[in-house]
């Protein structure tokens, strides 16, 4: 295998293997082969498809990732992307394999000593999954940045692993920021890890939160829901039917009664507690006047606090509605903003009357089948008609912008509409803002005490910056030589203190980060000797792998924007620099 090139890619091992496979199977009809391979993939990727679905997988299989640095961190990241079936990768690394790599990097072997690290890593990574394509370049990052900046524009995402030079990172950031390609910079340094995500604008179409309050529109039922509630007469029911009314209907009916009695809906916590007692009173009683144990009423009481009085547009979505990008649509606006604008127009207009489109999802609840399915269908039908209303607005917006009316399809709009409460837009600062002149980084450096994990991680961040400055000045990493590592520690401390002064850390932080404390951190960092501890690289590699998958699929919310990992204490902190 020779040096690859993205513009004119040479055949890689994977391509050769897959063309060999094509030859083997050419006797079978194409349709059969495709079906077998689809089935094979479904089985192979089953455990992850349950998380990000077939559409997430399709996005992953289309993605092209550039990894700068086939270091232990870099290869671990790619491992976590090659295994789930990334489309393709290209490694940029000019180093040769050294003995030290064998003790930290799983994707080199003793036979590779002296050869290009990018070649060994590419070969050993591709060997894991024949679905993935990969190539490598042995140019230095410096020369690519200087001479072929357009090279980086071929990728979905660029990852910079363990690049010690802040200047190079900045230059790379300046290439990617204007074209909107996300950059993930990261480092595993001794027992400390660092991850920085740089993306101008990233759209999350499914944030998939663990805990969320589902708006069932109990306070403001739509007409079809009111009609369904009105069709239920609690007084004229058998005992069995009474105990099988879904809790949503129970709450709707009792809210109406409450409102008739009191003039308004329960909003405060105290009101809700009283309302809960009011609902509980509604249980059927036996001949002795003792209430029966009705599971549906129990559910209704439990659901009061979480489902009553929650019908409002979530803050995150309000922020999207107020975003200038939502107001100032142009022919270049991303689909996301056109749809957000349509959802906003729907929400503030007559159709939504202050509510987001209905999602159509209904949690399971104690009920007979018929009542539940009926209720579910009412929500589904409303979700469909809301999505259709949003779609009409999207079409109109497209027409007004001079775009083709079907620029955004109904099925896409349905998807957004269903997930309206879970849409997010993530914008990080640029590297320029963090690393350049007049950086506001100091505001993020915090902590209550020297033992506070956030303080510790803030100071590790300072030390990593100091390491870069040390490297910039001396050309080597601190502690490389055993005999001078203590001297390096003293110098490193000075770099750290200079850095804190230059960015102007807040008083509280400066007091905690006194001379003795900084000296201890500097000694500890010099002790690492610029080496990579594999388990730290693996931690960073796992985390970055996941962040890259988020950026590729538009599912789950990426880190904004910095994570520091302290392996000595097993803690992480996030910072917004």
């Amino acid at each position: 295998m020779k040096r690859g090139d993205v513009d004119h890619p040479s055949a890689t091992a994977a391509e050769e293997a897959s063309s060999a496979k094509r030859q083997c199977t050419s006797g079978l009809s194409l349709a059969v082969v495709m079906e077998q391979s689809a089935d094979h993939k479904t089985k192979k990727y089953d455990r992850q498809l349950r998380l990000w679905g077939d559409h997430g997988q399709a996005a992953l299989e289309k993605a092209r990732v550039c990894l700068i640095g086939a270091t232990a961190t870099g290869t671990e990241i790619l491992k976590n992307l090659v295994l789930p079936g990334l489309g393709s990768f290209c490694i940029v690394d000019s180093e040769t394999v050294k003995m030290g790599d064998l003790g930290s990097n799983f994707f080199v072997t003793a036979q590779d000593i002296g050869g290009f690290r990018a070649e060994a890593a590419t070969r050993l990574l591709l060997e894991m999954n024949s679905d993935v394509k990969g190539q490598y370049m042995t140019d230095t990052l410096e020369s690519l940045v200087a001479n072929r900046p357009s090279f980086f524009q071929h990728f979905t995402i660029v990852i910079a692993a363990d690049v010690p030079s802040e200047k190079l990172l900045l230059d790379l950031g300046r290439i990617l920021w204007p074209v909107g390609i996300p950059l993930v910079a990261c480092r595993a340094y001794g027992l400390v890890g660092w991850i920085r995500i740089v993306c101008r604008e990233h759209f999350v179409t499914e944030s998939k939160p663990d805990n969320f309050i589902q708006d069932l529109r109990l306070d403001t039922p739509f007409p079809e829901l009111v009609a369904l509630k009105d069709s239920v007469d609690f007084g004229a029911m058998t005992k069995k039917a009474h105990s099988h009314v879904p809790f949503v209907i129970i709450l709707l009916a009792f809210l109406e009664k409450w409102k008739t009695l009191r003039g308004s809906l329960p909003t405060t916590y105290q009101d809700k507690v009283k309302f809960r007692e009011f609902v509980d009173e509604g249980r059927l009683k036996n001949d002795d006047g003792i209430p029966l144990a009705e599971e549906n009423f129990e559910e209704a009481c439990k659901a009061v606090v979480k489902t009553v009085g929650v019908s409002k547009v979530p803050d995150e979505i309000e922020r999207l509605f107020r975003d200038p990008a939502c107001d100032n649509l142009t022919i270049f606006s991303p689909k996301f903003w056109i749809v957000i604008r349509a959802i906003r127009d729907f929400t503030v207009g007559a159709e939504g009357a202050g509510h987001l489109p209905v999602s159509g999802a209904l949690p399971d609840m104690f009920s007979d089948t018929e009542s539940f399915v009926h209720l579910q269908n009412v929500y589904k039908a409303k979700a469909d008609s809301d999505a259709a209303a949003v779609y009409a607005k999207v079409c109109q917006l497209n027409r007004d912008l001079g775009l083709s009316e079907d620029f955004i399809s109904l099925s896409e709009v349905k998807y957004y509409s269903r997930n309206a409460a879970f849409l997010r837009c993530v914008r990080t600062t640029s590297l320029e803002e963090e690393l350049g002149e007049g950086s506001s980084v100091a505001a993020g450096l915090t902590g209550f005490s020297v033992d506070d994990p956030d303080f510790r991680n803030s100071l590790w961040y300072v030390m990593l910056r100091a390491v870069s400055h040390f490297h910039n000045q001396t050309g080597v990493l601190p502690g490389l030589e055993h005999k001078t590592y203590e001297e390096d520690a003293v110098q490193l401390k000075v770099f750290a203190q200079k850095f804190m002064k230059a960015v102007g850390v807040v008083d509280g932080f400066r007091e905690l980060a006194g001379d003795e404390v900084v000296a201890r951190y500097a000694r500890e960092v010099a002790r690492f000797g610029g080496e990579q501890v594999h388990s730290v690289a693996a931690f960073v590699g796992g985390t970055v792998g996941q962040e890259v998958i988020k950026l590729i699929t538009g599912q789950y919310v990426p880190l904004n924007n910095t994570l520091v990992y302290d392996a000595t204490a097993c803690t992480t902190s996030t910072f917004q620099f």
Partner: protein
Amino acid sequence: MALEDGANGDEADAIQGMDYGDDNVSADEVDDGAPQQDPRYKSISNLILRPGAMTRQDFEPCPELLDFIQNTCKVLIVGAGGLGCELLKNLALLGFRDLHVIDMDTIDLSNLNRQFLFRHNDIGKSKAECAANFINTRIPSCTVTPYCKRIEDFDEDFYRGFSVIVCGLDSIVARRWMNGMLLSMVAYDDEGNPDPTTVKPLIDGGTEGFKGNVRSVVPGITACLECSIDLYPPAVNFPMCTIAHTPRLPEHCIEYVKVLLWPKEEPFGAGIGVDGDDPKHISWICGKAEDRAKEFGIEGVTYRLTLGVIKNIIPAVASTNAVIAAACATEVFKVASSMYAPLDNYFLFNDVDGVYSSSFSYERNPECLACSQKPQLITAKPLDTLQDLIDALKEHPLFQMRSPGITTKINGKSKTLYMPNVPMLEAQTRENLERSLADLGFLDGQELVVVDVTSPTARVLTVKFP
């Protein structure tokens, strides 16, 4: 390097035999002033040979410690799945050379998206053996010894031979068993203090989707895995009446076919149970569940969902396994070197929304069934049946047993009340299930000896009548 490539393996062995003295190392790799180092493990030897400013007081940088990590410290990895593969790689690259791995499973196609030591050709082979072969070939300085066995197949003598035990399991039962085994190995002196030479630290990792956790246990000293047994999620059980009469979700329809229709129709022959790994079985269940769903107007029965419900599949992805196994391996390194204070004692990781982690200390539970020396009480009424008592042992949050077997002494004579896992004894004792405790001769304070898969040792419980 592909496993089947024998030539590469031989070359790698030749490298392993090399002497990395000064003569064989190029000048830029030599660090004068440093004690002799294997340049491959410079990152680890820096940490071990250089004094730290933030390390523990009792951490002594010295070549003997490096020698201990590399040549003496014997680490057992329980499970060669998603976490196990990562753990083997991580520990081997941290310089541990005497690794042992237990796993009785064989490799399945659905493992390949994260269990990176296995290839398509390995499907059907032993996980432990394939994983060991791969690591031994890729990192020739490390020797991994595989055991294609169950953890229950080994006794105290086996487990006593390790310095640290690290678990990467998906089974709560197996975790509890391992926890119980390590606790039972602890010897106490007359004052009730554990003898440190009998205490084997346990690091336990677990993942589910984008969430994971690490726990660090010093058996007999810190909280054990069962001290917080209530943290384990209860098994999702749909009520039988929902499944039988009022299904609402596609899952209810699938459960109906599995629990009620399958035993009635026996579609693949008399006595043949559901095999989650047989696509014909899953297809049949899926088809019947679709019929039932249609009948009730329920949507959403798919093959994937059917498979998930029948096999109780937990979603899994490479990245979370990587994070959790990395944190576990770092903890093993800390415990083995005493370089930094070990995790105290629970680490939680979740990267659904940004990246979130937290660590906190779980207190020992003085009532813990596994690690407290206290006799355990269970309340029951004299007219409860033995079955009621067994159900209580399964459902009580502190016990959560699976299939308890019970013996006791009645009138000074040993008596087996119920023994579910030995067919002959089960048949002989089955009739006791319907009998009341009073009828069986129970008195207030009756002592029971209970065996269960969740513990390697029998547990003594005292029955308390109200």
